[in-house]
């Protein structure tokens, strides 16, 4: 085998492997700075100018406009507390506390970040419209079938993510400081 052939083969393999690795990293990552707390992941650097290259590339590619540090913080859950992927065939209880923030919302999105259509026309729960218990706690039931109380419907039959957004929160600059117990737990109740 002459040197040119070797160089061409190595170059082709390298190009394919390099592009494939970038593609797969950007598909799953939320950046080098991603902090995982329980089932929730926050990308703290998304809202700053000096974000790391992975964070920047993943934001550019998705076209998302992150919250700035001074505005708030977004956390995304791909799984429940046990680590199992969120499934439209299951019923989840989300609660009972949320980190300190002036307002927060809990929404359901598909795997590219858009709300999922559902018959009840509800894509998000606001902290200002929740039914709460006597201690100020709450439970939001995430399920395909209608539930009494705070019900966040699962539309469609695709896997989904839950998004928790904190507005005007003291934690926006320091997601690392959020205690796991301060975030809502995502407990799977039952599955079909």
């Amino acid at each position, binding site marked *: 085998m002459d040197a040119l052939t070797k160089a061409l083969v*190595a170059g082709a393999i*390298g190009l394919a492997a390099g592009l494939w690795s970038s593609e797969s990293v950007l598909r799953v990552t939320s950046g080098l700075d991603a902090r995982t707390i329980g089932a929730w992941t926050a990308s703290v650097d998304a809202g700053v100018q000096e974000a790391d290259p992975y964070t920047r590339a993943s934001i550019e590619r998705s076209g998302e406009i992150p919250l700035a540090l001074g505005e708030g913080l977004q956390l995304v859950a791909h799984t429940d507390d046990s680590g199992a992927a969120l499934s439209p065939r299951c019923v989840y209880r989300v609660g009972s506390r949320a980190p300190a923030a002036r307002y927060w919302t809990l929404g359901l999105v598909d795997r590219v970040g858009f709300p999922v259509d559902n018959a009840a026309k509800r894509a998000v729960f606001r902290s200002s419209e929740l039914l709460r218990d006597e201690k100020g706690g709450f439970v939001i039931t995430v399920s395909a079938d209608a539930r009494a109380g705070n019900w966040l419907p699962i539309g469609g039959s695709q896997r989904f993510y839950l998004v928790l957004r904190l507005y*005007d929160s003291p934690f926006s600059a320091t997601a690392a400081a959020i205690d796991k117990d301060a975030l809502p737990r995502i407990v799977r109740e039952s599955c079909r």
Partner: protein
Amino acid sequence: MKSPTSTLRLVFDLATIAIGGALTAGLVHIVSILIVPLYASNDAFARLSALGPINATIALPQASADSRLIPFGDPAVAVAFCRYDLRNGPLRVTAPAARYEYSSLSFHTNRGGIFYALTDRAAAQGQFDALVATDEQLRAIASRESEDEPSQDLRIVSPTYEGFVMMRAFSEAPSLYPLAQARTRGLKCQPEAPQS
């Protein structure tokens, strides 16, 4: 039958290719990650640019399953934006800031970075008012001012000529969304006339 030398030769060739391939892969990976922000033609700025001219206030549709422009938008939050180009001079940004509900302004470069943000809590007299300018333009403005009457302006240095200002307004209930949207429509972005 192959001689031991030719087998050895083949192993050596494959090892060279594997090492060369791995090195190339590493280089391609790093370069491709770094150039995505420079060449992403479908980033947020490009998507917003398609919606209208610079300095115009444009409301984004409420996040829903049907409006798939910008992902991870909050259906509880109304959003409007304006693009700017500081080559036309500094930009005056004003917007109403209601006293009890959350609203915010964030300032973005055309390359996906956020260089400033403030919420209604930092707005004086129920009004956001800021001047966005390049470093050079700000120095020119400062040199024209007298030291006895320092300006009360909120001045923000934009690291790039082009970018956009985004206003978010929170709605406390679904029925209040139209009001939040009306507030975001109050965002005004105007090039500041150069003072002589």
